[in-house]
């Protein structure tokens, strides 16, 4: 079982290695946000420095790739429901959950790699990060990616239509982004907004990211975010594996 997951992971990473351009292009958006949006925020911070703006904004921009990058992972799987790849794998000796697990693990690794690049750019711009915070942030990105990618595979298998999936992702993306405080902290907003935000799981990962970047490693937001995403990740993973089993009708 573990062997099959590793085989699928190796195969998927091979595909990424052959076309690294896509993974690298994926970080363009958060980097542009860091370069062109973070400086606009310096006035809103207490000290009015770019360093503080980066501390506040970088975790949000990173969660954007965790959300957007992973939510689109399902597109490749819609194609695979049509080109017969999943059909063939379903009647091969492959352990079925490994088909999803291998792909999700690939998505998490790519995300961690992208996160590292984004943090590198932020550090070059003047952000200071401890090693512990960096490592925990990578883990948090991976946990968020686990949830978003499995959800995307599950949606792909349930909908099996590119237009449908893209509409659903677009529909949820903007409110989730704003209500997670990815661009600006929700704490700047009115009370009702802060209440609504508490129902958005991404709010917790952004908050945990900000705590990490501020080097408040004992902040409760961090274990809360890991806990939420461990549960959500397991649920969405189980759902997508189940959807795979229903492929045959």
């Amino acid at each position, binding site marked *: 079982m573990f062997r099959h997951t590793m085989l*699928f992971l190796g195969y998927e990473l*091979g595909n990424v290695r052959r076309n690294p351009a896509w993974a690298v292009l994926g970080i363009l958006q958060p980097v542009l946000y860091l370069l062109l949006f973070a400086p606009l925020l310096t006035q809103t911070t207490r000290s009015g420095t770019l360093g503080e703006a980066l501390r506040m904004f970088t975790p949000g921009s990173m969660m954007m790739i965790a959300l957007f990058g992973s939510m689109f992972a399902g597109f490749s799987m819609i194609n695979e429901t049509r080109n017969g790849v999943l059909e*063939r794998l379903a009647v091969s000796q492959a352990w079925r959950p490994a088909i999803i697990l291998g792909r999700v693990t690939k998505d998490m690794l790519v995300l961690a790699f992208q996160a590292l690049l984004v943090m590198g750019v932020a550090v070059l711009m003047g952000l200071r990060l401890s090693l512990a915070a960096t490592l925990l942030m990578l883990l948090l990105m991976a946990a968020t990616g686990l949830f978003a990618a499995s959800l995307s595979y599950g949606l792909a298998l349930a909908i099996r239509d590119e237009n449908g999936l893209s509409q659903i992702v677009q529909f949820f993306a903007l409110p989730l982004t704003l209500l997670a405080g990815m661009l600006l902290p929700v704490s700047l907003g009115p009370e009702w907004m802060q209440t609504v935000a508490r129902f958005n799981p991404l709010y917790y990962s952004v908050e945990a990211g900000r705590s990490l970047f501020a080097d408040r490693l004992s902040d409760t937001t961090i274990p809360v975010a890991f806990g939420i995403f461990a549960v959500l990740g397991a649920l969405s993973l189980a759902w997508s594996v189940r959807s795979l089993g229903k492929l*045959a009708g």
Partner: protein
Amino acid sequence: MIIEAHALRKTFIARRGRGKTEEVEAVKGVDLSVAEGEIFAALGPNGAGKTTTVRMLATFTVPTAGTAIVAGHDVVKEAAKVRERIGYVSQAGGVDENAPGLENLLLAARLAGHSRKQALVRADELLATFSLTEIAGRPVKTLSGGQKRRFALAIGLVNRPPLVFLDEPTTGLDPQNRANLWDEVRALRDQGTSVLLTTHYLDEADALCDRLVIIDNGLVVAEGTPEALKKEVAGDVVTLRVDDLAAAERLLAAQPYIKETQPQDDALRAYLDDGEHNLAALLRALEVEGLAIRSISLDRATLDDVFLRHTGRSLRDAA
């Protein structure tokens, strides 16, 4: 018998708009038995239930009712054991087009339990068998239709299965690639592999398979060797077009050498043996009756005539 299926049925619940569902009976009760080392075809129009039948036998789809023993194991209760002993090449092919064919093959080999080294050896063998060695490193999407199909076949054979399912293996291929694929399927049989293929091409079933079933509307309507099935109809067939079809039908029925007549569109198809000799007698009879012939032709009976006899329509019109 490498396949023994009894009364296989599959009903799908199809969604029809808001909250409404409809039961679709894709397969209504199929019995099949395929002997070891045989090329067996399921011939039928699109939508007849061929693919669903194959998917049930290959453990992809769970039957609604009925039983099937494939390669010695029950397809429902021992699906994992069946999967070890079959190869399955779907209509869509199942090759990841973004990766090189070799990577596809290696992954399939390793999933089948080969070590890294064994997988390389097996992939090399298959690449050589299907003349794919030189293009093994190219992304599959850059290959031709025939080359993709050969990769699909190679992947299906990676675990040396005693039984291979080929769902519409030559659909969309040009005549040259089709002929090559037929040779490859025959080569498989010669090595002792059993093959179950589906097709809607009459000539393919006729030329390639040892035995076949004709499937229409989810049911088996005829079974046998191509020769025996055709012989049941007749050796030859006369296609006759005249102005007065009813009169011609009466006349044909009165001829002792005509075994059967089937109307088809604006023509009549009359079945007879020894057509070369009897055609002359038929022409005389038509002349005596004063029926003006618009056209007449004599052909060998084909599997389409078998299909016509059992379903009342031509396979060409049935799709």
